[in-house]
C-alpha cells in the first residue's frame, strides 16, 4: 500500500462538500421545519382517533 495524503485531500474535499451541504440542509430542516411537521403529524393522528 502506498498511501498518498494529497489524493485523500482531493477526494476527501469533494466528499466533504456533500457532507457539509447535507449537514447544513439537515440543520435547516430540523430547526425550521421539524416543529411544524411534528405538529401536523400530531394533529393528523388526533384527527384519526
Amino acid at each position, binding site marked *: 500500500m502506498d498511501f498518498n495524503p494529497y489524493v485523500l*485531500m482531493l477526494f476527501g474535499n469533494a466528499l466533504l462538500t456533500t457532507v457539509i451541504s447535507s449537514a447544513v440542509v439537515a440543520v435547516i430542516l430540523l430547526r425550521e421545519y421539524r416543529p411544524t411537521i411534528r405538529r401536523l403529524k400530531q394533529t393528523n393522528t388526533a384527527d384519526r382517533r
Partner: protein
Amino acid sequence: MDITLWIFVLVLAAYVIVAAGLTRFIRNSADFYVMGERGSTVLITGTLAATFLSAVTLMGIAGISYSEGPLVIGALGSFGAWLGTLVAVVWIGRKMKAMECRTMMDFFDRRFNNKWVSVVALILMVIGLLGYGIIQLIGAGLVLAEIIDVPFPVIIVAFTAALMVFCSLSGMYGVVYTDTMMFFTLLAIAFVISPMLIDQAGLENLRGLGERLPGYWTLAGADDRSLGWSISQFLVWILFFACTPALVSRVFPAKNDFVILKVAIVGVFFAPAMQLMVYLAAGAMQVIQPGIEPADRAMIVGFMDHTNPVLAGVGLAGLMASIMSTASTLFVLTGFALARDLYEKLFEKRLSEKRSVLAGRISQIVVSLIVCVIAIARPAGIYWISIYAGSIFAVAWLPTIVAAMTWRRANATAALACMLVGSISFIVFGELERHDVISYPAGIDNLMIAFVLGTATLVALCYACRPSSYELARYEEMKGQRMAEITIGRFLDSDASGATLIREYRRVWWVMAAMLVIAFGLWGFFFVRLGL
C-alpha cells in the same frame, strides 16, 4: 459541410428553438425575470451546475491538471469554489429570495434605499458580469473557430445572435431551460467521455504519472507551486463564488424552499463531480498523449482524437455548452440590470407589466449587440478589465452583503465606502504589482489586501455612522422574512392537512441520504484506486 460545423449549427438551432417555444410562458415581468418562480429541482440544479462549469474548467484548469497534476487547483482552489457555491445557494440566495428579490440589485435597493449605493453596486455588477463573460466568450470562441474552421467573427455573431434570441424572447425561462439542456451535455462529458479517457489511460498508468512527472500527485504539482499559492486560490474562489450574481441568482426562480434545499445538496454535489472527472480525464490525456501544446487544448484533443465521432460531437457540444451556459446567465443578468435596476428603478420609471417585459427584451438586445461588437473588436481594454472583473464581487460585494444581512449597524455610508475601497484598492494594488512597483509575500495577493481593507472600512464606518430609521426598520423586517415560513405557509394554504408539506420534507431527507451514498461511493472508489 464538415461534421463539426453541422454539430455547431444543430446545437445552436436546438437552443434557439427551445427558447422560442418558451416565449408563450412569458405573460408578465415575473415570468421574464424569475420564470414565475416555477423552477423545479431538475431545472435549478441544471442551471446552477451548467453556470458553474464554464470554459475555464474545460480548458484553463483542465490544462493545468494535464501539465501539472489534478491536485494543483482541484484540491484547494476548486474546493473553495464548491463551498462558495453552497454559500451562494443556501445562505445568500435563499435569504434574498425570502426578501422577494428578483435581482441581486433588489437587495441593495431594499436594504439601504440609497441611490449612491445602488449606482455603485450596479456599475460594479455590469463591469464584473460583462468583463468576465466577454473574455470567456473570446477565449473559447477562438478555440472553437479553429476546431470547426469558421472565422472567429462568424462564431461570435452566431453565439450572440443565439443568446439574443433566448435571452430576449424568453428571459429567465430561456436561460434556465437551455442551461438544463447544456447541463446534460456537460454530464455526458463528465460521466461518459471522461471515464472513457481514464479507462483508455488506465488508472495504474494515471497513478504512475508521479514517477515520470515528480510532484504530479501532490498539492504543489509538477511545477512545485507554493502552499501559499494554493491557499490563495482557495480564498479567491470561495470569496468569488459566494456572492457572484451568476450563482446567487440561480435560486430566485426556484419554486419553493424544498427546491433550494435539494439544489444545495444535488447541485453542489455536481460541482466537484463534474470538475474532478474532467481534471482526472485531463490527467489521463497526459498518459495517452503527452506534449499537447497549448495544454488548455488537452480535453479538446481528447474529444476529437481519442473518442468515436459521436462522442467527439457530444464533446464539441459540451464545449459550446460550457461557454453558452455561463455567458447566457451573465448576459441575461446584465440585461436585467439595465432594464429593471437602471431604467425602471434608478430612473424611477413606472412601467406596466407589458412595458416592463418589453424594456427587458430591448435591454437584452442591446447587451447582445454590445457583447458582439466588443468580442469581435477585442479591444485591449477588455483584457485589462477581465483581470479584475470576476473577483470584483468578492472584494466589493461580499463584505457589504454579509454585513447588510447580519449586522444591525450596517448603513449606506459603510456599504458605499466598502464597495469603493474594496474595488479601487483591488485594482490599484493589482496594477502596482503588475508594473513591478511592489511585490507581495508568497500566498498574499491584491485580492486579500483589498478584501481586508474593504472590510476594515466597512466595520469602522458601521461603528462611526448610525443607521437610519429606514435601515433599522428594513433590518428588522428582513430578519422576519424566512424561506421556511413562506414555504410552510404556501403549502398549508393549498393543502391544510399538511400531507404535501410532510411528503416534500421527507423527500429532502431521502435526496440527502442518496447523495451521501453516491458521494461516498464515487470519491471512495477514486481514493482507493489512486491514493492507496
